[in-house]
């Protein structure tokens, strides 16, 4: 047992490749047999990943899901920002410039619209829950933008730790919901071509959510959505502690 544990921990990235491979195999098997291919195998795999992350987090009390389980530590590296970004960039291989140009302007507008709309919705809900302090309302609104914009904004404008934690939770809910919800609503919102994928990426903005949501819908759309989504957090960090905070301050 000790030998196995030591081998697993020493080779954790390799263990992660094997573990994820098995999860993928099971997921595609289930998608084929149980749903007749109606649900994408990758959607099931992502849902299983989130479920495992929940139990991993509850069991270890850590904040990186199943990667806090010692034997599965390699999941942390495999699913970390470095590998995610590397693979996302690779999906752009074979994309034609003309497709990008077609949605260029709508893509840019969608980034700003997405940040502002999510912020307003989050801030409105903070007000509904009885928050009256401008810094607190702004931080929770920023959390609804993404779980990175929330703490960056909160720290910049001096919000309390509890509110910052709350803003991270709101951002996490958003990201997870985009992962699970995108394949379910894709048809309804016309998410079936590069242009709408770029608009989708700009509006949603959560890179993880968009990356997983599009992968579970149609992997061909991934590069287009990811392209705009990666600008969103930056724009959010730009607007949150500045213009958006000033507007909220003027109102409360």
């Amino acid at each position, binding site marked *: 047992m000790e030998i196995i544990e030591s081998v697993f921990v020493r080779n954790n990235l390799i263990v992660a490749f094997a573990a994820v491979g098995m999860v993928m195999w099971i997921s595609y098997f289930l998608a084929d047999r149980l749903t007749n291919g109606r649900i994408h195998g990758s959607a099931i795999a992502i849902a299983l990943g989130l479920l495992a992350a929940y139990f991993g987090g509850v069991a270890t009390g850590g904040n990186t899901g199943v990667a806090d389980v010692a034997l599965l530590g390699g999941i942390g590296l495999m699913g970390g920002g470095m590998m995610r970004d590397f693979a996302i960039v690779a999906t752009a291989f074979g994309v034609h410039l003309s497709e990008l140009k077609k949605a260029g302007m709508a893509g840019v507008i969608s980034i700003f619209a997405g940040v502002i709309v999510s912020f307003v919705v989050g801030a409105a809900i903070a007000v509904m829950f009885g928050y009256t302090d401008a810094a607190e309302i702004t931080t929770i609104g920023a959390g609804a933008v993404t779980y990175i914009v929330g703490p960056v904004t909160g720290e910049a404008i001096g919000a309390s730790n509890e509110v910052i934690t709350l803003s991270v939770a709101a951002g996490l809910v958003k990201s997870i919901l985009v992962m699970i919800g995108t394949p379910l609503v894709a048809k309804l919102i016309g998410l079936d071509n590069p242009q709408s994928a770029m608009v989708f990426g700009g509006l949603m903005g959560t890179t993880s959510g968009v990356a997983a949501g599009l992968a579970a819908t149609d992997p061909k759309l991934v590069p287009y959505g990811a392209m705009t989504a990666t600008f969103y957090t*930056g724009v959010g960090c730009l607007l949150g502690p500045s213009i958006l905070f000033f507007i909220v301050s003027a109102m409360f």
Partner: protein
Amino acid sequence: MIVYGVALLSVCLILGMIVGDTLGVLLGVEANVGGVGIAMLLLVLASNSDRFKSLTHDAAGSGIHFWSAMYIPIVVAMAARQNVAAAVDGGMLALLAGVAAVAVSFALVPVLSKMGKAPAAKGEEA
């Protein structure tokens, strides 16, 4: 050589990240602004240009294709390392804020997509 493609991909990501971080500093925000997006643009430009043919064709191209195909497994690993427990613990406020933001954003996708199509269609007529 497969590694040529992998190296091109790596250089694109590193350059994109440097530009993204620099943009962040210039704009005074503590974040990388579009680094991955810029890296993707660089790769698109390289793969559409003849000058980089030796880095994107044949075996070199399969080095990039490999990482592109590893994308979904990596995303599954990414899902497995999310802080789902914290999201569940966030309570009603966090849940409502997240759900409402996603619902409104989903609803806006068809609206903005149409906006993008209208001027393009006009351009095709002219």
